[in-house]
C-alpha cells in the first residue's frame, strides 16, 4: 500500500505543478492588456507604467515565471488592486469561513445522504424506495440559488429563525452562533451533494445485496442490523468514499453562490467580487489556491480508498 500512496503523492505533486502553470499563464492569456483593463479608461500612462513594472510585466516571460514561483514558495501571492492588501492576508482572513461552511455542509451531506441511500436500498422496489428516488431527483434539479433564496425567504425573512445575512463568528468563541450563521448556506449547498451521495450509496448497496455472502450471513442467523451494517455497508463504503471527492468539489463550487446570497465573506464570495472587479491578481491566486485544495481532497479520498480496500495495493 505504501508504494501506492507514494506513487499517488508523486502524481499529485505533478498535478499541482500543472495547476500552478495554469495559474501563472492566466495573466498572459487575457486578451488585451490586463493592466489597462484593471486600471480603467482614465488611467494615466505613468500609473500604467508603474503597475506594469510592479507586476514585472516588463521582464521576459521565463524570468517572470521564476520570480513568481519564488514568491509563491515564500508565501507571497501578490497584491489585490482593489482591496489594497496582500492576497495572502485576504485569503487567511477569508478561508476559515469557507472551511467551516464546507465542514457543516459535508456533515449534513454525509449524515442525511448515506442513511437515505441505505434506506432506499433495503426497501428496494417499495414505495419508500420510489419516494427517496423522487426526492433525490428533485434535489438534483433545484439550482442552488433558488434553494438558497427560498430558504432565506422562509426561515430568515418570514420566520426569523436565522440571520438574513450570515454573520460569521469563530466556532471557538461561539459554536451556536457559528452554526446559526452558517446553517442555511450550508443546507443550500449540500442539497445536491446529498442527493448524489444517496444515489451512489443506494446503487452500491443494491449491487452487494444479491451476492452469495449476504445470503450466507443471513443463513448463519445473523441479525439483520449486523448484515446491513457489517456485510453490506462495509464493502459499499469503497464506492461511497471514492465519490466523496466529487461531492466535495460540488460543495466548493456551491460556496460561490451561497456565500454571495447569504453575504458570507469567504473564498467563494471573494471569487465573485474579484471577477466582477476584474481583480486579476486575486483571481490568479484563487486558481492556485482552490486547485490545490481540491486536488489535496482528492488525494486524501484516494488514500482512504486504498486503506479501506487493500486490493488496491496490488495494482
Amino acid at each position, binding site marked *: 500500500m505504501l508504494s501506492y500512496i507514494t506513487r499517488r503523492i508523486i502524481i499529485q505533486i505533478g498535478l499541482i505543478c500543472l495547476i500552478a502553470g495554469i495559474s501563472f499563464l492566466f495573466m498572459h492569456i487575457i486578451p488585451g492588456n490586463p493592466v489597462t483593463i484593471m486600471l480603467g479608461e482614465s488611467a494615466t500612462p505613468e500609473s500604467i507604467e508603474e503597475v506594469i513594472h510592479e507586476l514585472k510585466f516588463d521582464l521576459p516571460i521565463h524570468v517572470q515565471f521564476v520570480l513568481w514561483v519564488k514568491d509563491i514558495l515564500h508565501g507571497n501571492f501578490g497584491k489585490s488592486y482593489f482591496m489594497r492588501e496582500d492576497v495572502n492576508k485576504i485569503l487567511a482572513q477569508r478561508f476559515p469561513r469557507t472551511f467551516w461552511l464546507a465542514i457543516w455542509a459535508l456533515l449534513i451531506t454525509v449524515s442525511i445522504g448515506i442513511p437515505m441511500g441505505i434506506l432506499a436500498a433495503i426497501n428496494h422496489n417499495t414505495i419508500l424506495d420510489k419516494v427517496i428516488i423522487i426526492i433525490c431527483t428533485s434535489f438534483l434539479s433545484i439550482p442552488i440559488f*433558488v434553494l438558497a433564496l427560498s430558504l432565506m425567504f422562509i426561515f430568515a425573512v418570514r420566520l426569523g429563525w436565522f440571520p438574513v445575512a450570515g454573520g460569521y463568528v469563530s466556532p471557538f468563541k461561539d459554536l451556536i452562533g457559528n452554526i446559526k450563521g452558517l446553517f442555511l448556506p450550508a443546507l443550500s449547498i449540500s442539497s445536491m451533494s446529498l442527493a448524489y451521495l444517496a444515489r451512489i450509496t443506494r446503487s452500491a448497496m443494491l449491487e452487494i445485496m444479491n451476492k452469495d455472502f449476504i445470503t450466507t450471513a443471513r443463513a448463519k442467523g445473523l441479525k439483520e442490523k449486523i448484515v446491513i451494517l457489517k456485510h453490506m455497508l462495509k464493502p459499499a463504503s469503497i464506492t461511497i468514499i471514492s465519490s466523496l471527492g466529487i461531492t466535495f468539489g460540488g460543495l466548493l463550487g456551491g460556496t460561490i453562490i451561497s456565500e454571495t446570497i447569504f453575504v458570507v465573506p469567504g473564498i467563494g464570495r471573494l471569487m*465573485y467580487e474579484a471577477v466582477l472587479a476584474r481583480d486579476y491578481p486575486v483571481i490568479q491566486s484563487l486558481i492556485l489556491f482552490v486547485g490545490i485544495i481540491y486536488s489535496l481532497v482528492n488525494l486524501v479520498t484516494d488514500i482512504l480508498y486504498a486503506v479501506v480496500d487493500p486490493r488496491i495495493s496490488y495494482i
Partner: protein
Amino acid sequence: MNLKYLFKYYKLGLFASVLVVIYIFIALFAPYIAPYDPLEMHFIDNLKKPNSSYWFGTDRYGRDVLSRIIYGSRLSLEVSGIAVFVSMFIGTIFAICAGYFRGRTEIIIMRVIDVLMSFPGIFLALMLVGILGPSKWTVTIALTLVYIPRNARVVHSKVIEEREKLYIRAAESMGAGFFRIAWRHLLPNVLPVMLIQSTFIFATIILAETSLSFLGAGAPPPEPSWGNVMSEASHFMNQAPWLLIFPGLTIFGFVMCLNIVGDFLREVLDPKTNR
C-alpha cells in the same frame, strides 16, 4: 422494443420527454406565445400580484414576468444547448483519440483532463467569464470549455471498453484505418452513452448557466434570461415573492424533466450499467 412496451413501463420518462419538447417549442416560438414584449414597461402596473392580465405578475418596472420567462428560456436554452453540443463533439474526439491510440496520446490527454477537472465547474466557468468579460457568447465558450473534459472522460471509459472487443480487432486485421474504425465502429457503439451523458450534462449546464447569469456573469440585462430574472427578483423578495416563485419553478421543472429523461434513456439504451 416497440412503443407499446415503452408506454407501459416508462410513462414518467415519456411524459418528461414531452415536457422537454414543449419547453424547447416555447423557446423557439417565444414571440408568438409571449403575451407581452419582455422589455415593455407598464409603470402603473409595477409589482402587481399574479392576475388575469399578468399571469405571473409584474416586476418593478411593470414588465410582464411570464413574457420575461418565455423570452428568457430562449437565451438560457440557446447558450446551454450550444454548449452541450459543442462540448460533447470535442469531448468525443478527444475520447476516441485517447482510447484508440492508447499509450502516450492517452496519458497526455487524460492528464490534461485531470488537471482541468481539478477545479469545480462553476468556479472555472466564472473565472473564464472573468477573463473574457460577461456576454452571451463568453458564457457559451466558458461552459463549453468546462464540460469538454467531463464529457470526454465519460465517453472515454466506454471507448476503451469497446476497443478491446473482437469486432474492432477483426476490422483492424482487414486493414481498416483509424478514421474508418472511429467512424464506422466506435462512434455508433458509443452513441447511446453520448446521448445519455448529453441529457444529464444539459441539466448540469442549465444549472450552471442560470447560476452564472444570476451572479451577473451572464448576458447583461435588460435582455431576460432565467438567471437574471431571478437575480432582479431577489431584491424584492419581501414585497413580491411571486417574482421568485415562478422563474424558480420554471428552471426546476426543466432540469427535473431532463434528469428524468436521462434516467429513462439510460434504462432503455444502456440497461447493463443501470441499477
